[in-house]
């Protein structure tokens, strides 16, 4: 039961940090003005065009495809297998389990292997390509290791040392209703869950912010219509209103 309590506190904390941290960052991104029109052109000239551009970036990594085919393959592999794996895990909290979640169950296992292969490929780039090695910080390696270990520990529970899935499910459903439930004290499970909590904790303070951040990237989300529609930030409008040239002259 002690393990259950520790992990319950850990997951509540991690969820709180993840949700509040990301919400806070989104608030900052949203409230910071973009004073100039800077879409990377050619850019869409309508809102629906921007929606399409963003869709292609978010779901197909279009710019990355132009930049680097190998990285695109590894990136697509990693992100989409992760999506399948996350969906698959919904069954540990849902009751009843949705059809789509049941549907992805068999793919989840294969996805686990491909997930690790993708991550190993990304790791290899950081080690073997001199340009990528140069720009890699220890935290970049640490994050890849974290994800690889999450994948390996997950697969170990599938193939090497299974844990009591029903008990795990009861634990997570209990978290939703603030009802303490015990957790199996299998080392592999505890490692797996600990690493996932760590991932949630670092999300709002690391480069993982690229996920919400891309939606706020002015070079991608702006409409190319500066001649048709005047675009002005509040702080710049204030200069105009007061008839001043420099911000430090404002009243």
């Amino acid at each position, binding site marked *: 039961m002690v393990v259950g309590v520790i992990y319950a506190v850990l997951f509540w904390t991690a969820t709180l940090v993840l949700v509040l941290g990301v919400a806070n960052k989104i608030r900052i991104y949203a409230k910071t003005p973009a004073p100039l029109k800077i879409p990377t052109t050619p850019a869409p000239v309508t809102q629906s065009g921007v929606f399409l551009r963003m869709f292609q970036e978010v779901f197909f990594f279009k710019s990355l495809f132009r930049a*680097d085919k190998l990285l695109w393959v590894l990136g697509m592999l990693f992100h989409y297998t992760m999506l399948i794996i996350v969906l698959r895990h919904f069954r540990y909290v849902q009751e009843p389990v949705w059809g789509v979640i049941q549907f992805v169950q068999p793919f989840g296992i294969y996805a686990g292997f491909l997930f690790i292969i993708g991550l190993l490929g990304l790791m290899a780039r950081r080690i073997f390509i001199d340009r990528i090695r140069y720009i890699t910080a220890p935290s970049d390696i640490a994050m890849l290791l974290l994800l690889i270990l999450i994948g390996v520990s997950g697969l170990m529970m599938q193939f090497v040392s299974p844990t009591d899935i029903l008990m795990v499910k009861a634990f997570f459903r209990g978290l939703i209703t603030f009802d303490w439930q015990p957790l199996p004290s299998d080392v592999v499970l505890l490692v797996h869950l600990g690493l996932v909590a760590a991932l949630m904790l670092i999300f709002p303070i690391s480069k993982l*912010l*690229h996920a919400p951040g891309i939606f706020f990237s002015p070079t991608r989300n702006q409409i190319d219509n500066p001649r048709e529609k005047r675009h002005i930030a509040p702080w710049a409008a204030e200069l105009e209103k007061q008839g001043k040239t420099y911000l430090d002259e404002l009243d």
Partner: protein
Amino acid sequence: MAADYDVPKITGEDGIVDIPSLQPDAMKGHGPWVSKPEFQEDMHFPTDFTMPESIENYGDAGTLVENWKERALDKMGDLKGRYRSLQVFLDICVKCGACTDKCHYYIGSSDPKNMPVARQDLLRKVYRRYFTFAGKFFGKIGMPGFVGAAELTEDVVKDWYNYYHQCSQCRRCSVFCPYGIDTAEISMAAREILDHIGMGQKYCTEIMGKLNKIGNNLGLPEAALADTLEGLEEDIFDETGVDVKLPLDKKGSDILLITPSADFFAEPHVDGLMGYAKVLHELGLDWTLSSYASEGANFGMFIGSYENMRKVSLRIRKAAQDLGVKRIVFGECGHAWRVAYSFLNTLAGPFDFLDQNYPVPQHILEITEPALAAGKLNIDKSQNDDKVLTFHDSCNIARGSRMGDKPGGQFVLPRNVIKAVCNNYVDMPADTIHDATYCCGGGGGILTDDLMEIRVKGAQPRMEALKHVTDKHQVTHMAAICAICKSQFTKVVPYYGFTMDMIVSVHQLVSNAIVLKGQLTEEEIEARDAAEEAERIAAKEAREKAAAEKAAKESKDT
């Protein structure tokens, strides 16, 4: 050409440079000349710093403003609160490396700090250390490097000054970044911070000083400008027999033409200016230049200063109002067009006092191209038959603006114009044109002699592509629509074995091919010149005869 550094070798094989291995610190240096306090003052930047005694002292704490560290961090905090681009871009880079082989300065110099992500990291590591939880935490336990954070030190400032002046803000990296991170935004912010701690760049600041005082980057006063334009009118008349005007400060004109001041004197820019004049004349448009706003370029963008960029832009608004024009048209200038197209309405709008039937502002190509398509200009393409053309897409036009109604019009319009006035045209390899175009190597405040080495090296990708089309497709000339591209190329192509006169303005080609109403044929011009010559000789003889008679009379009198 002699140079005390290695000029990259070009082969022309496939037109693409192989990505080099890293050579750390290959371009380490003191950076361009630092601006004196007096110029900084005009720009409203702090002046409480000491000019370094020599370039070796650039960035030393003793030369910077007091409390430089706090003030640099304050400025960073201020900027990230006012620019969403900066705030988001500093946070979301995953260091994937997609951009690492995309910068012409990295390709040409092999210095890893010229890889876009590494260039950004020079600023980002300081942001991480002082503005993020991870950086503060690992900084406190003495391991900031674990999360890519670093202390702000003199050496960091020196790197900022050096490497943020090896970025031409061309935005090629932002095309390939999966999140659209634009190094130009980072380097503009870095230069703004440097300006606030006593490390402004002499080139940009002095030029803006001239503009604010006189009206153009060149410091060309009204009288000299009027004189120059008169000379150009005479040149056109001599060449065509047609009285084409280049009006200055003509009140009540329909169109105000804003063009880079290089168009008034530099080659091949000036041939382009004569081209605009001929087109506008032939279309019967009533236009004028302004002496008050005699500059298209806006260096305020290079130094990331919204306030100074706006101050320059407001001159154009004032000139348009004072002259009572209905339209504003821009000449061939890359950065000018980005600021005009993307920012002018923001900085100096709203332009509700102009004719709303036309976009504000317009590019001269948006006038010439439709006119050519509609057959409104009489063209003799054979006048350009001595050339095989290619076209260099200027970075700021390609990736920071548009022409015409459709996205990508900035690639189509200039090519349409060239093809309408020339019989021979070949594009350079696909990976080097359109929005993948390489910067000329001199954009964004780099076009100064004290940065010659990086300018030469940064031109390598374009030179390789050009070599390919000259070797394999008999290209003889490269056309451009940017004053900086034209100046940079004419200076740099000799290092790569080309001749400087192979660089031409797009409107120079139009000027060559256009046949004005009432234009004299070559025979008629010869006949006219012969008649004038005969008249001149006759007058001279008459004068000599009169003088001789006078002398004879005088000698007779004595």
